[in-house]
């Protein structure tokens, strides 16, 4: 599953030889993230975020498990135990702030990881499965983060739980019984808090399992790279260790500096002050907002203010509330179809002039607009802005991407990664004239993905 020139693991001491015969775990690590994994030599810093996301998951599991030693998931005391963590538990403030800001940083890192995928079309064959598993991880992360935010049992926790489970009540016929079933009551209460804690503890380990599948699927074709040209020969790659362990280590250092700034100097900047008021089922905060990382999707939810009706008859086909819910979930489920919506054989945005314009001047501004509108109150001009941005968001993926991939004339691709990096490639000329497969069976996708020079 790796390239033919990948270095082979050789146990050096008798102990390691003995271990390799019984349980070849060091061999697995060596082949996965060691010198035995050849990686394209031209990866830029956008390729750091996978490792950083893995680090964030580890950080959240470690801080979360220790916080669970001091927290009690009971509506009577939950709010109090969070304050107990903040005031009484040794370094409790640090652990809680690291966990709360860790969630935000996890989403920052994952959003950059996803947008790297959008720009460099990392979702295209032969890497569709990596992308699909990634979308699954993202959905699991959203569920985990939502349930974690309910646990402090503050006002935003309570009303967030009310609003998000209220989304399910929009489903025709089964919606309201489904919401009661999810909450274990008619409003968020002890039953809901307890099950959210249980699932919030469980899901990170499910995520870790899917992450293993995600990395496994990645190691079959190997990493993509900024040119989008597949690896052809040994000179296109360097071993993961020490080259990318060093590069990822540098990225981790930068990440930790920024993370420490937030944890130690701005720990509540990304939170909402209303969550320091204990949950009150009889009083709704004037302005309910989810955590910042849900804002774009919350804006899509709120963008639908009118029912879908048959014109002039007044018959409602789909009420506004259900439309909003469908659109919000659809906005993410759409990503599952991305590998088949974008048919262009060229991967990298660098060689796709038209795609690049729509990416930077269409998708990115639309996402920023949705982000701002999702955090703003539901009033003009935010409503109309979020409606326009929502329309563009869906058009971009469902209409623009398929059309662009048909009509676009891509720029000429370099022959190989080596040529892209060094400006020349000593590879034999005959391999250029003939098949685009430069003799690395199993490592290349079908030749159609490499346009003729």
């Amino acid at each position, binding site marked *: 599953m790796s390239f033919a020139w990948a270095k082979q693991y050789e146990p050096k001491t008798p102990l390691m030889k003995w271990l390799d015969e019984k349980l070849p775990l060091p061999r697995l690590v060596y082949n996965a993230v060691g010198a035995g994994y050849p990686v394209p030599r031209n990866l830029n810093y956008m390729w750091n975020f996978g490792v950083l996301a893995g680090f964030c998951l580890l950080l959240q599991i470690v801080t979360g498990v220790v916080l669970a030693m001091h927290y009690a998931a009971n509506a009577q005391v939950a709010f109090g135990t969070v304050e107990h963590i903040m005031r009484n538990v040794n370094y409790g403030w640090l652990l809680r702030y690291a966990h709360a800001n860790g969630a935000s940083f996890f989403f920052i890192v994952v959003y950059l990881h996803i947008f790297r995928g959008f720009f460099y079309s990392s979702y295209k064959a032969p890497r569709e499965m990596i992308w699909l598993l990634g979308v699954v991880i993202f959905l699991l992360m959203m569920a985990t983060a939502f349930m974690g935010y309910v646990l402090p049992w503050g006002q935003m926790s309570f*009303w967030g739980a*009310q*609003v998000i*489970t*209220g*989304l399910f*009540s*929009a489903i025709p016929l089964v919606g309201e019984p489904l919401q*009661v*079933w*999810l909450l*274990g*009551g*008619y*409003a968020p*209460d002890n*039953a809901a808090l307890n*099950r959210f804690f249980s699932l919030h503890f469980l899901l990170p380990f499910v995520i870790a399992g899917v992450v293993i599948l995600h990395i496994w699927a990645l190691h079959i074709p190997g990493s993509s790279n900024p040119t989008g040209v597949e690896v052809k020969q040994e000179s296109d790659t360097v071993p993961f260790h020490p080259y990318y362990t060093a590069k990822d280590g540098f990225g981790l250092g930068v990440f930790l500096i920024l993370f420490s700034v937030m944890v130690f100097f701005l720990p509540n900047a990304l939170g909402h002050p209303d969550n320091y008021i204990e949950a009150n*089922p*009889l*009083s*709704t905060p*004037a*302005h*309910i907002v989810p955590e910042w990382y849900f804002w774009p999707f919350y804006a899509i939810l*709120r963008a*639908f*203010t009118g*029912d879908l009706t048959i014109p002039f008859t007044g018959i409602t086909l789909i*009420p*506004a*509330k*259900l439309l*909003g819910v469908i659109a919000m979930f659809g906005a993410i489920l759409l990503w599952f179809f991305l590998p088949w919506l974008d048919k262009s054989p060229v991967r990298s945005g660098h060689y796709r002039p038209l795609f690049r314009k729509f990416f930077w001047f269409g998708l990115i501004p639309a996402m920023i607009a949705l982000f701002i509108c999702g955090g703003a109150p*539901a*009033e003009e001009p935010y409503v109309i802005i979020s409606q326009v941005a929502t329309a563009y968001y869906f058009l971009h993926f469902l209409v623009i991407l398929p059309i662009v991939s048909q009509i676009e004339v891509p720029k000429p691709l370099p022959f190989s990664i080596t040529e892209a990096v060094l400006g020349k490639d000593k590879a034999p000329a005959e391999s250029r004239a003939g098949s685009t497969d430069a003799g690395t069976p199993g490592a290349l996708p079908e030749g159609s993905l490499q346009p003729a020079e």
Partner: protein
Amino acid sequence: MATDTAVTRDLESQEGVRRRDWIHIAALSTAGVGAASVLIPLISQMAPSADVLAASTTEVDVSAIQPGQAIKAVFRKQPLFVRRLTAKEIEEANAVDVSSLRDPQTLAERTKPGHEDLLVTMGVCTHLGCVPLGAAEGENKGEFGGYFCPCHGSHYDTAARIRKGPAPKNLMVPDYTFTSDTVIRVG
């Protein structure tokens, strides 16, 4: 030995049906029924427990509510609005063309006979479940003089019917009965 082979051959000749197929079907069906019956407790444990269901009736004394005034009570751990309408509010509610409403209902359909001035609704916005404003003194009652949900801007009229904004339904009227002239039992 020879008879066994003959029997096997004979059975297999019947369109490939083998005696072992029956064992497969029986075993898998039994396992399937077993798995399904294990799912029932696993799923139904999530539904409201007995103590939650037991707290599902509430009695409210409505004698002290003055016209134009509303009180908040608690029903199933959710806010309940009980409002004594003024003559003007009743007039406004009855003046509306019912067929023009998103969720067409008359005031009479939303109250009990003989108590048309007493409007009992859940204080839960039908959009996403926020508590609308307008029950307490001095709160924003929205453009139609009833309730206003600040979360996503739903306006309810004096009969707590949805008039403007994203909510799909009128504020829900729970099941209730007058146990005496002054006391209602909700649930």
